[in-house]
């Protein structure tokens, strides 16, 4: 058959993970990401991999910890409340410098919330997500094709920096179906000399652990880890710019919000308003450079989000509060319409930058 496949975003993540050499999946079902687990349950036995539905999210993330310790590619996936349950494990993984991929197909919150799409776990994902000083690489796909590509990228970055990569998608991204091409290259994995694979009496034994009771030593580990984070910030920020060259107004949006925003921008351009889009693809590291640059010429920024306004704080930081940043949002599982975003653009144009 043809090379094109019609896939749900969730399925694209699962298939891309398998292509990236991930043979271990542990999870617990939750809408709207269950197709990832269902796909893995079908496929893993056929390729000699392991699919295991754990008794809880906490069990699943600890199984991920175990496999990651052996240096194998491993992943788990969940949706907002389930990611909160995995929080302890995420912190332990960071404390043990283990690479893994975690997928969050976000739904409306807080609490049990609903099952409709949301971006309200932005703070949780980009500002740590659990106790202790740590970071995760956070990738925000805006198409089914990117769900697949960023899954592979996520594994590669996790291995390169020995840390967790998180795919921060939302219910729409997980459920929507688009044609996908899955013929991308997967880079060779770096060596894992730290893995607990058995010494064969030929080397010192490796220890994977996040406990460190000597304060001086724990401090040293933290400083060393943040040197690595600094390298990630310097080298790995990704973003897309759309019609920004001459733009007076810059819309900042990621994931599904960026697709809605593009529609609104096209309409605004027809009306003669010079507006463009900066779409962060990595949410951490946040792509500061295009915002710093745009802040020199643009007169207003609009942050379009499916939350009560979370990324807007990073937009304000990146633009150094030189120009006003307004929020255009829906919450609780609702999605802004192109008309709403267009309204915010027209408003910003009228105010000429005055908040």
């Amino acid at each position, binding site marked *: *058959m*043809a090379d*094109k*496949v*019609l*896939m*749900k975003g969730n*399925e694209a993540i699962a*298939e891309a993970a398998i292509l990236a050499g991930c043979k271990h999946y542990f999870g617990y079902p939750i*809408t*709207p990401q269950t*197709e990832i687990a269902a*796909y893995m349950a*079908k496929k893993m036995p056929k390729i000699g991999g392991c699919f295991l539905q754990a008794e809880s999210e906490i069990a699943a993330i600890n199984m991920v910890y175990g496999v990651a310790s052996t240096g194998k590619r491993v992943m788990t996936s969940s949706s907002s409340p389930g990611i909160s349950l995995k929080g302890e494990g995420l912190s332990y993984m960071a404390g043990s410098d283990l690479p893994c991929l975690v997928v969050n197909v976000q739904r409306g919150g807080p609490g049990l919330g609903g*099952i409709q799409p949301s971006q309200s776990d932005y703070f949780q994902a980009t500002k740590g997500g659990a106790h202790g000083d740590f970071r995760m690489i956070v990738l925000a796909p805006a198409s089914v094709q990117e769900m697949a590509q960023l899954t592979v990228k996520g594994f590669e970055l996790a291995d390169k920096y020995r840390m967790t990569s998180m795919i921060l998608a939302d*219910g*729409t991204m997980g*459920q*929507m*179906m*688009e*044609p996908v091409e899955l013929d991308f290259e997967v880079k060779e994995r770096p060596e894992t000399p730290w893995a607990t694979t058995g010494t064969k009496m030929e080397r010192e034994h490796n220890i994977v652990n996040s406990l460190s009771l000597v304060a001086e030593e724990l401090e040293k580990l933290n400083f060393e880890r943040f040197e690595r984070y600094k390298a990630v910030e310097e080298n790995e920020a990704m973003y897309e710019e759309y019609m920004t060259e001459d733009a007076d107004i810059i819309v900042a949006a990621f994931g*599904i919000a960026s*697709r*809605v925003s593009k529609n609104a921008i096209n309409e605004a351009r027809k009306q003669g308003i010079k507006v463009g889009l900066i779409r962060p693809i990595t949410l951490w590291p946040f792509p500061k450079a295009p915002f710093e640059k745009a802040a020199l010429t643009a007169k207003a920024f609009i942050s379009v989000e499916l939350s009560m306004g979370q990324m807007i704080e990073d937009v304000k930081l990146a633009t150094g509060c030189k120009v006003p940043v307004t929020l255009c949002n829906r919450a609780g599982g609702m*999605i802004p319409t192109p008309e709403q975003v267009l309204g915010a653009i027209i408003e910003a144009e009228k105010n000429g930058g005055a908040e």
Partner: protein
Amino acid sequence: MKNFKRITLLCGHYGSGKTNVVVNMALMLKKQRDRVAIADLDIVNPYFRTKDSSGEFEDNGIRLICSEFANSNVDIPALPQDMYAITDDRELSVIIDVGGDDRGALALGRLAPQIIDENDYEMLMVINCYRPLTRDAESTIEVMREIEYASRMKFTGIVNNSNLGDATTPDDVLSSVSYANEVSKLSDLPIVCTTVEEKLYNDLCDKIEDLLPLSLQARPV
């Protein structure tokens, strides 16, 4: 589509486009019969369901048999309370949306004895070669066998709904015909129709037998 049986069951892997075919067939059937119902036995997928189009059915005088709690806070996998109207009310013509793959088809098993006993039904498999788990005839047959096992019923025909969503070209549909023929040969079942989005119909109607135009249900962004 002519010669509808009293009950038409539509099954398929999730994402095959089954629910869209169900909605279109019900609208077609309503032009031929007085009392028509859609029964939603899809208790697996809470994201896309016939209930989303309930307004359209009401406007067309089509009865919707679906869980009263769909899209509400108690949206548990519950069957509709008036489910037995499907088998008890023999004046009613019904299109049944059976749940995706074998898990969804389990719910059908409850009605299977009565449907088989009355013997005025068609059970159709909706297939799409562009979906990852039904890319070739063999894997499609595998899914069909799983559904038959779970539902305790046998298929009587195939609906070729091969598509790539909005990006579907006439060539994509044309090149799916050999796949559908292969499924037909391996399963020994007829291809009842090949379905395409309305806008592609004119390009293809003289190239594919039993071609059926579909209007698309609204999609999210």
